[in-house]
C-alpha cells in the first residue's frame, strides 16, 4: 500500500504532499520524504556510470527502512517525485508504471493557466487523479 506521495520543486520546496494512512504518522512520513531528498541529490550528483540508467527519470529504490520502501523520480525540469510504500515485495514495473501515470497527472496540473510555477499544487482534479492512481497501484501493470 502506498502511504505517502510527494512532489518537491527544484529548490527542495514542497509542491504537493499527501499521505494515505489513517495512522497519525504524518511527522514520520515528512521526515522520510525529507531524508530522501538528500539521497536523490547524492544519486544525481554522483551517478553510477552504468550505461542505460544514466539520467533516467526513474531513480529506483532510494532506501529501505524497516517498514517502508522509498522510491524516487526526477523530471527533466528538476522536480522530484517521492513514493513511500509499505509493500515490501514491490515489482519494479509497477513502480515505473505508477510514476509514469503520476508524471502525466502532474504535467496536466501545471498546465492549468492558474497554477503558479513553484507554488503548491491545489488542484482538486489533480488530487482526484492521484488518488485513483494510488488506489490502482500494483493491481495491474497495463495502462
Amino acid at each position, binding site marked *: 500500500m502506498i502511504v505517502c506521495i510527494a512532489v518537491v520543486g527544484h529548490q527542495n520546496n514542497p509542491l504537493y504532499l499527501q499521505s494515505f494512512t489513517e495512522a497519525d504518522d504524518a511527522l514520520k512520513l515528512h521526515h522520510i520524504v525529507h531524508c530522501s531528498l538528500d539521497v536523490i541529490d547524492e544519486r544525481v550528483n554522483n551517478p553510477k556510470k552504468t550505461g542505460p540508467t544514466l539520467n533516467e527519470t526513474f531513480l529506483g529504490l532510494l532506501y529501505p527502512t524497516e517498514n517502508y520502501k522509498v522510491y524516487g523520480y526526477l523530471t527533466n525540469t528538476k522536480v522530484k517525485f517521492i513514493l513511500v510504500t509499505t509493500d515490501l515485495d514491490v515489482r519494479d514495473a509497477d513502480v515505473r508504471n505508477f510514476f509514469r501515470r503520476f508524471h502525466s497527472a502532474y504535467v*496536466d*496540473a501545471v*498546465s*492549468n*493557466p*492558474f497554477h503558479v510555477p513553484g507554488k503548491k499544487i491545489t*488542484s*482538486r*482534479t489533480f488530487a482526484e487523479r492521484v488518488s485513483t492512481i494510488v488506489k490502482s497501484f500494483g493491481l495491474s501493470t497495463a495502462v
Partner: protein
Amino acid sequence: MAPLAPRTGDAVFANVERVNAELFTLTYGAIVRQLLTDLEEVEEVNKQLDQMGYNIGIRLIDEFLAKSNVSRCVDFKETADVIAKVGLKMFLGVTASVTNWDVDGTSCSLVLEDNPLVDFVELPDTCQGLYYCNILSGVIRGALEMVSMKTEVTWVRDMLRGDDAYELRLKLLKQVPEEYPYKDDE
C-alpha cells in the same frame, strides 16, 4: 457551371492545416492569466476577451467562407447550423448541437460538450466571475456581423463554473443589408 456544394465540417477540417492543440490551449490560458494580472478587474477581462474574439472573428470569416464554399447566409436557422457543424469543426475540431429555438426563430443555443480552450483549466476561487471562454462568443459575434447579422452572444452554461455543458445563447438582433456607402452629391 453549378456552384460547388458547401463542404461538411469533417471534410473542411481534414483539409485545413492543423496543429497540436496544446499550443493553442496553453497560449490562450497564458493570455487570460496575463490579462487578469494587467487589467485586475474580472469584468474588464471578460470584456477584453470578447473584444479580442470579435477582432478574430472578422478575420476568420473570410477563411471560413473561402474554404467551406458557403455562399449565402440569409436564413438565421441555416446559419446557426453552419456555425455548429462546419465553423466550430473547421477551426476547433469540435461540433455543437443547436437547440432551444424560440418561436420567432431569432434565438437559439449552441451546446458544446467539449472545447479545446478549457483543457487543463481549473478556475481559482478568486476568478468566479470570469467567463473563461469569452473569446469564443466574441469570435461568433464578429464573424456574424461580417455577414450582416448583428447578434448578441452570451454564455448560459459553463462547465468551468460547475454546469454540465457549455451553452452559448445566440440572439439575432437585426440583419443589416448592405447600403450604398457614398453620398449622392456628385
